[in-house]
């Protein structure tokens, strides 16, 4: 890279910008009660939240894969009227305030919702269940997977698929044996991004799924409630766990985001 002389105002503003991100993390690390961290982490409440968060976020990622990969495939390969609109709607949760997502989920799947009122008649009630947590997390996280996989499908060299087809492979075989391996990096990155977003979900979850330990109280909810209950040490420790996971995700994806790291 060419060496550039940095004008002082630019350097000052850039340093302030960087400090804005570094300082809160430093605050969290400084205030964490390291000596008690282990004990805070293995309290039943913390373990419940951790277990539920893992189960729900991994389930959300699986659901997002099952529904999102076909969606991405269609966006990348099929021209149809209204594609732009449908694509915009399904990626809206990336910019939609999560709490609005939660309200919308209630109005669709709540007991008096569009679909929910019918679900109740067949004996299915979603709010206040772990299923509702998975739905809330899928709602906010799936777009990250869809967009990443779609980009992978668009940028891959389709001649490999054509070659496989001319050699007599069926569409299903081509997809599994050629397309999937070629877009594997995008699939992995999309799944990790989706999982990380699901793990951090708060607004849609507390609105649509409520808050009950072991059932719907995920890590972010537990952190928020511990902070206000006065058990701040525990909330710092749980925050640090999520921070560590985020750092790990970033490290795992560094080749995509941080250039040549």
């Amino acid at each position: 890279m060419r060496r550039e002389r940095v004008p002082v105002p630019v350097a000052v503003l850039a340093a302030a910008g960087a400090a804005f991100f570094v300082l809160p993390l430093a605050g969290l690390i400084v205030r964490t009660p390291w000596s008690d961290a282990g004990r805070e982490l293995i309290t039943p409440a913390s373990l419940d939240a951790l277990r539920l968060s893992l189960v729900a976020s991994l389930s959300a990622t699986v659901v997002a894969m099952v529904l999102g990969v076909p969606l991405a495939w269609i966006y990348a390969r099929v021209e149809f009227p209204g594609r732009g609109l449908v694509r915009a709607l399904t990626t809206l949760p990336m910019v939609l305030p999560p709490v609005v997502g939660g309200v919308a989920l209630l109005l669709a799947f709540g007991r008096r919702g569009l679909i929910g009122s019918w679900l109740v008649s067949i004996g299915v009630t979603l709010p206040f269940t772990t299923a509702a947590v998975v739905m809330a997390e899928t709602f906010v996280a799936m777009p990250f997977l869809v967009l990443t996989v779609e980009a992978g499908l668009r940028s891959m060299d389709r001649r490999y698929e054509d070659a496989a087809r001319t050699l007599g492979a069926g569409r299903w075989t081509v997809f599994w044996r050629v397309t999937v391996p070629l877009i594997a990096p995008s699939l992995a990155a999309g799944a990790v991004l989706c999982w990380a977003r699901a793990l951090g979900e708060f607004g849609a979850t507390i609105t649509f799924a409520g808050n009950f330990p072991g059932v719907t109280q995920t890590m972010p909810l537990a952190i928020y409630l511990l902070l206000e209950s006065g058990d701040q040490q525990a909330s710092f420790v749980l925050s640090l766990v999520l921070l560590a996971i985020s750092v790990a995700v970033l490290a795992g994806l560094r080749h995509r985001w941080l250039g040549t790291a």
Partner: protein
Amino acid sequence: MANPSVGGVHPVHVFAAASLTEAFKAVPAPAGLVWTYNFAGSPTLVTQIENGAQADVFASADTANMDRLEKDGLLAETPRVFAHNKLEMVVSAGNPKGIHSLADLARSDIVYISAGPTVPAGRYASQILARAGVTVTPKSLETDVRSVVGKIELGEADAGIVYVTDVAASGVKVQGVPIPDSENVVATYPVAALKSASNPAWAEAFIGDLLSAQGQAALHRYGFLPA
């Protein structure tokens, strides 16, 4: 946070329990002062004050949360009680599930929700259920008493235990079901000026207003019991 005083009108930052929302908005302010409110669950407010929020006055829905600030050394004075409140069950308008007693809350067809255990209303609800000998696990522990009412208005839950004043302040979508005095608890609302108050005299002006005949009348209009 900055302390803007527009045209010589000084804002007094009052941090108040969610259940006080409508009643506090009716507390008159003298010339030169304006009450600016931050309504939330009492423990949320305590956490905000502990972490340096610019607050002049704290009004809690119980003594436990006020005690937390007293232990932290953040109160400028001994808290004073300014109101009492009672609790009742809240159900959808018309009481479609036929909830008439606390025991009904334990029915398998009832979705019961409560405020969380750190929120005063949640603790009072647990005490009431214990007194009545009713064992019921809430489906959700909401972050403040108002979101319990909200979930029932939305139809997601069938019943909760909230303040009488919450039901009175809510719309036509919900109604109250009284809890007999023998099982009910009386909530005590204390108020105190904070050490962080930008001007102790202004904080005192608010508390004075609250305890005045006019302030007490405003609280009474919204269903609170006198101090």
